[in-house]
């Protein structure tokens, strides 16, 4: 029982981060119907920028965080402006391919900088852990979870209650209608990319405090895609739930099956889950089923 609780707690805490990555993909999809693989790189670069400012250049924590967010939003802006916008009017599938071209390009840059090494942050999150009768809860991960939950809340509320959020929802509903009601759809696309780049970089930093910055970090973006698909591509709340479920499932199955089957269950569990979802409920938990006509 202690084992089970231990696995679930770690799973939930990791799941919070997965939801944040998932939601960055969901908001881009909601607004522009583009599925992005490139978010894994946005995440990795966020973590990398933060490392460069904090460790490489020795800036204080708040300044490096701020500069990271600025650089991340610039990245989001450039990606939208120079790679996504020229493809408007072409089939959506070429936008999908574009994000994966971006993934390859940024992957090269990421590997170029890392050169096969691992970069670790100094400990800026609270260290140590709480012990609840054998169940160990690391403090740093709790902080990560709370931060991502808080960001989630802000995002959901600003979608509901701000003017830009309203415009974004209108754009998600129907591009042409939104445009005729005076919403600049182009600007909305830019905003969405910037916001999701910022969120992705924050989740990247949070991820890197747990795993350090090393090569497979960009591939957490694929975890985000799994979350987005599982929750339904249109649903922000779905991403939250799906991220938590994915984290739980990964950790519990890895905890119990790894000793028997010999390692690597964590990733495979996620992909097996993805396959099952796609076969049973292709549009996710809260996604809209699409009706096709000739």
């Amino acid at each position, binding site marked *: 029982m202690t084992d089970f609780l231990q696995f679930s707690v770690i799973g939930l805490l990791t799941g919070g981060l997965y939801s944040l990555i998932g939601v960055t993909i969901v908001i881009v999809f909601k607004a522009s119907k583009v599925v992005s693989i490139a978010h894994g790189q946005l995440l990795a670069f966020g973590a990398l920028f933060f490392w460069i400012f904090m460790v490489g250049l020795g800036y204080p924590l708040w300044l490096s965080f701020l500069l990271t967010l600025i650089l991340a939003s610039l990245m989001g802006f450039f990606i939208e402006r120079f790679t996504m916008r020229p493809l408007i009017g072409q089939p959506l599938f070429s936008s999908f391919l574009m994000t994966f071209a971006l993934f390859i390009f940024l992957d090269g840059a990421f*590997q170029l900088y890392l050169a096969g090494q691992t970069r670790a942050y100094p400990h800026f999150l609270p260290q140590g852990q709480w012990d609840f009768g054998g169940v160990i809860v690391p403090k740093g991960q709790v902080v990560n979870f709370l931060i991502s939950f808080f960001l989630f809340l802000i995002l959901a509320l600003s979608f509901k209650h701000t003017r830009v959020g309203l415009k974004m929802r209108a754009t998600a509903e129907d591009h042409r209608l939104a445009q005729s009601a005076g919403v600049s759809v182009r600007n909305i696309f830019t905003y969405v990319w910037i916001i999701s780049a910022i969120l992705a970089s924050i989740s990247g930093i949070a991820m890197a405090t747990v795993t350090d910055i090393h090569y497979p970090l960009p591939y957490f973006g694929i975890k985000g895609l799994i979350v987005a698909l599982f929750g339904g591509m249109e649903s922000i709340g779905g991403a939250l739930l799906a991220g938590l479920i994915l984290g739980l499932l990964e950790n519990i199955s890895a905890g119990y099956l790894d000793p028997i089957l010999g390692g*690597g269950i964590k990733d495979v569990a996620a992909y097996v889950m993805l396959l099952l979802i*796609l076969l049973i409920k292709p549009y996710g938990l809260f996604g809209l089923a699409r009706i096709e006509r000739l």
Partner: protein
Amino acid sequence: MRASGIFDKTYQKDIAIVRSWQHWMLLLGTIAFLFTIPLFASYYFINLLSNIFVTVIVVLGLQIVTGYAGQISFGQPAFMAVGAFCSAVLTLKFGFSFWLALPLSGIAAGVVGIIGGAPSLRIKGFYLAMATIAIFYVTMWVITHLKITGLAQGLSPPPPKIGNFVFDTDERMYYIIMIATLILTFFARNLVRSRMGRIFVAIRDNDLAAEVMGINLYYYKLLAFFISCFYAGIAGSLLGHWYMLVNAEQFTLLHALTYIGMIIIGGLGSIPGAYFGVIFLKLLDELMLFSSPFLVDMFPWLGMGSAASLSLMAFGLVLILFLIYEPRGLARRWEIFKTSYRLYPFRYGEQ
């Protein structure tokens, strides 16, 4: 577009792939050239060519399933791995000869591919892409966790041999790879203009409409996956016996992305496009490999050993530019060139 004055007078001529004697000369000349390359070319060049040919086989398979049948597949390296490991296991553990193991590994990869392609019956587009990524990871996990495939270290299959003649050098292996590529190219070229190829195109363009017209979607989608994975399996088997080493590190998701990139750059839905894409990207790789010492000299902060990352960046950049400026790839440029060359003084062949 034909040059002026050339007409098809018989049915045979109308359906011929090779139309004129110049065409025949060019084809035979190319094949003869390919056969004589090892006589004068350097070791490095032969290696590069074999590498290109193996990749061409995989990309041809991908071209059939993605370019023609419209079902995107990121699972190609996993099916290559299935082929490679199958042929290694058959030759090492069961004592099969390479010549039997080669087609069998193709079929094994094809069967796994049918299982892998099963989600395409329900989903399409990027949902299918995600499903194939999942299949990729699951397959690779199974391969690296089975005892018979040597766990993480992999296996070292023996080189093929006929009687006492062992194909253990790069030049000898080049012949096997080249001949396999020629046969498979011929097969693919004919396949896509047969009834089956036309059905694939119909499914790609609008699968609902194709179904309404009486095409059995399930059968043909799975068939497309089978054929493409058969190609991948053959390529994997050749690669394994050429390197005399197979392990999971040779088949990564990045390879899958590269293959997709190759068919985009070459041109989706075109057999010559597969060649263009592979050759273009392999040459780009080599270019980056050669130029990276100079680049490092110029920009010392790049650091040593940056060639791989630099070529990855170059690849990404080229892919971005192609998607924006020429989404139909080099194959379309080639068609435009051919038309304008044939109609030379006149200009109305350009589309």
